[in-house]
């Protein structure tokens, strides 16, 4: 019985949150990796673009809510998502047109792109704060739980409850669908293949008649989809606050590099590696350990390896270890 309780506690506090968070990171890291593969720079505006996508979705959600449109038990935000994606896509295409295209033409060094993306980051950040403000925003509605802790306790008779939030279930299902669709697109369609060709060898792709501007445009559209979905899911699961999205930049970059920059499969693996280490290291294991050990050995402390405030340190340390020992990442990414 105690063993079952331990398993339930572990699932409730570690596995489910880490899988949901990992899916969100993976979606974000896929965006970073795609931009890196096709446009060949690390996009510092990524986190703030994510906030922008979530913001557009939230505004449309509020509009729907005010009209009484709802798809309960699912959150209304899901209905608003396509609008958010289109809005973000237009925004990203506009930034590409106004900012990045010029540097592509003059064949600027990657670091100049990074710097330009820093300017875009400022603008996006200012824009989001300007429209929606710097504070927390609530936009989740619909059923809160798929399985609530009390129902689970009654059903199983265990002491530990297992709560499975709608936002978590939604995150996992959406992430699986999106990733499957993306891989189908990259591997099976003509456009997807041309994107991979462009990422592998730009000169060869140009020689075989691939239109680079078209590839870039499609990349931005896909990235808009990925980051809006990731941003909205993160907002539903935790909370929407513009500054948190900026801070997500570090774990997202870490996921992409750990997996191997430019490698989509690596981005997904990296997202889960980072999420599981972050949750695992900052979780207070006392409950699980108490169930597993005999009473006399029960720990008196929290058995927490690091306080939650240091969760960024976890992604950073993993990043440093990977940079030191395997700079191309776990799944051979592009050159160092």
């Amino acid at each position: 019985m105690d063993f079952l309780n331990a398993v339930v506690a572990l699932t409730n506090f570690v596995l489910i949150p880490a899988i949901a968070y990992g899916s969100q990171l993976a979606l974000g890291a896929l965006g970073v990796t795609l931009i890196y593969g096709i446009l060949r720079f690390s996009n510092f505006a990524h986190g703030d673009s994510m906030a922008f996508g979530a913001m557009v979705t939230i505004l449309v959600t509020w509009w729907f809510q005010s009209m009484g449109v709802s798809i309960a038990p699912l959150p209304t935000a899901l209905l608003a998502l396509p609008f958010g994606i289109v809005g973000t896509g237009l925004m990203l295409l506009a930034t590409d047109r106004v900012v990045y295209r010029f540097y592509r033409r003059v064949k600027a060094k990657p670091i100049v792109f990074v710097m330009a993306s820093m300017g875009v980051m400022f603008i996006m950040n200012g824009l989001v704060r300007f429209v929606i403000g710097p504070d927390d925003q609530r936009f989740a509605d619909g059923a809160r739980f798929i399985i609530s802790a009390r129902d689970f306790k009654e059903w199983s008779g265990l002491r530990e409850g297992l709560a499975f939030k709608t936002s978590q279930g939604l995150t996992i299902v959406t992430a699986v669908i999106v990733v499957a669709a993306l891989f189908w697109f990259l591997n099976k369609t003509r456009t997807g293949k041309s994107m991979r060709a462009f990422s592998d060898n730009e000169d060869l792709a140009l020689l075989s008649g691939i239109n680079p501007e078209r590839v870039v445009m499609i990349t931005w559209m896909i990235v808009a989809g990925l980051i809006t979905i990731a941003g909205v899911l993160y907002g539903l699961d935790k909370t929407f606050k513009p500054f948190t999205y900026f801070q997500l930049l570090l774990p997202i970059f870490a996921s992409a590099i750990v997996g191997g920059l430019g490698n989509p499969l690596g981005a997904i693996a990296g997202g889960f590696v980072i999420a599981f280490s972050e949750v695992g290291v900052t979780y207070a294991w006392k409950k699980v350990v108490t169930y597993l050990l005999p009473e006399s050995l029960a720990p008196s402390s929290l058995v927490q390896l690091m306080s939650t405030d240091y969760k960024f340190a976890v992604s950073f340390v993993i990043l440093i270890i990977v940079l030191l020992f395997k700079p191309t990442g776990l799944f051979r990414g592009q050159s160092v």
Partner: protein
Amino acid sequence: MSQSIRTPLMFALVALLFILQGSTDWWIFAGSWNASLAILNMALVSAVMALGVNLQWGYAGLFNVGVMGFVALGGLATVLVSMPPTPGAWSAGGFKIIAGLVLGAATIVLMIWQFKHMTKGRRRNLIMLATLIAGFFLFRWIFDAGVAGVEAVNPAQTGYLGGLNPGGQDNYRAHGYMTLLAWPVGGLLAAGAAWIVGKTALGLRSDYLAIATLGIAEIIVAIIKNEDWMARGVKNVIGLPRPVPYEVDLQRSADFVAKADALGMNVTTASTIAVKLSYSVLFTVVLIVLIVLAQLSLHSPWGRMMRAIRDNEVAAQAMGKNVTGRHLQIFILGSALCGLAGAMMTTLDGQLTPGTYQPLRYTFLIWVMVIVGGSGNNLGAVLGGFLIWFLWIQVEPIGYWAMTLVTSGLADGSALKTHLLDSAAHMRLFSMGVILLLVLRFSPRGLIPEK
């Protein structure tokens, strides 16, 4: 326009902005010398930071996005040096904390030794893992006991180890020179952190250094926020000693009052201006010394080598230059300048408030200064520091003015008008982004280009 005319002209224009701020309340200007000097002091500090970033970016092409972390380390140094030691804190657990930290460091060194000197294979990995686990738990056991002891010492007032000020709790303000000693210490702390980052991330792709520095900055600020035994964390350390006189003392001194009367000034205003001016003089001396050093180094063989490396790494390597080694050297130097500036800033504020360290303000704004001023040119970076800091402060009144103009057609009290006027404060980030992109696109060499 030749550079020899352009540089003084640009500086004169920026000086004019500060003079207008002090003398007239026309348009967006405040018309107060106090306000003008407050901006000037922070601008001087920002100029030192910009010099540091320019050293890294302008001389060597290194992209450091962790300025905030190095600045925060400088601030920490100010507390660690200039505050008095907390009575009883060392015996309550201070030594245990130090022992724990030494043990933690020893574990890492031991692991590095094992990695380098043992034969590859599963046995080495297992031994390293065992060392890590044993070392970690031993570290936490000793360290946590020490932390609990120190933080229990009068937590409402102190609850931290305190610094090295010889004056003790009651008389530490008399030893204001201690804050000056803290400035180089801040530089040293930042240099140490830079060495760790540089060792791992230099020599890889240029974006990797950016991401690694972004990470280390977040971690440094997280540590300062959470390790209460060090500098009280988010409870803040206030009332740091000053290297300059206090306003109240000036107002009490008969000599000063007589001088203020002779100038026909209100004594309170005169005292605040005198204090701010003393800071300005201190900071200006530091800035001028640094500019001279930076200019000398730029025109020395060392500076030429750095630029040769920046412009063509492969060619420089072929000439026998150790590119990664030079990069590490200049990365440490630049970060040390940021640390020094951080210590100066905390001295100016008179308090350490870890909650206020924001990357957009302390990292990315400094970058805007360097790019706008002219990367690769020390005077350009300094000019950028003055100009952008002035704009950063003044964008709010400008934004409010612009918003009032835009919304003048709307009815008073309408929701949109209130929202737009309230959001004028967020114009800061937006306008800095626009300035950065415009300069990068149309004048990538900045206001005062590199020669």
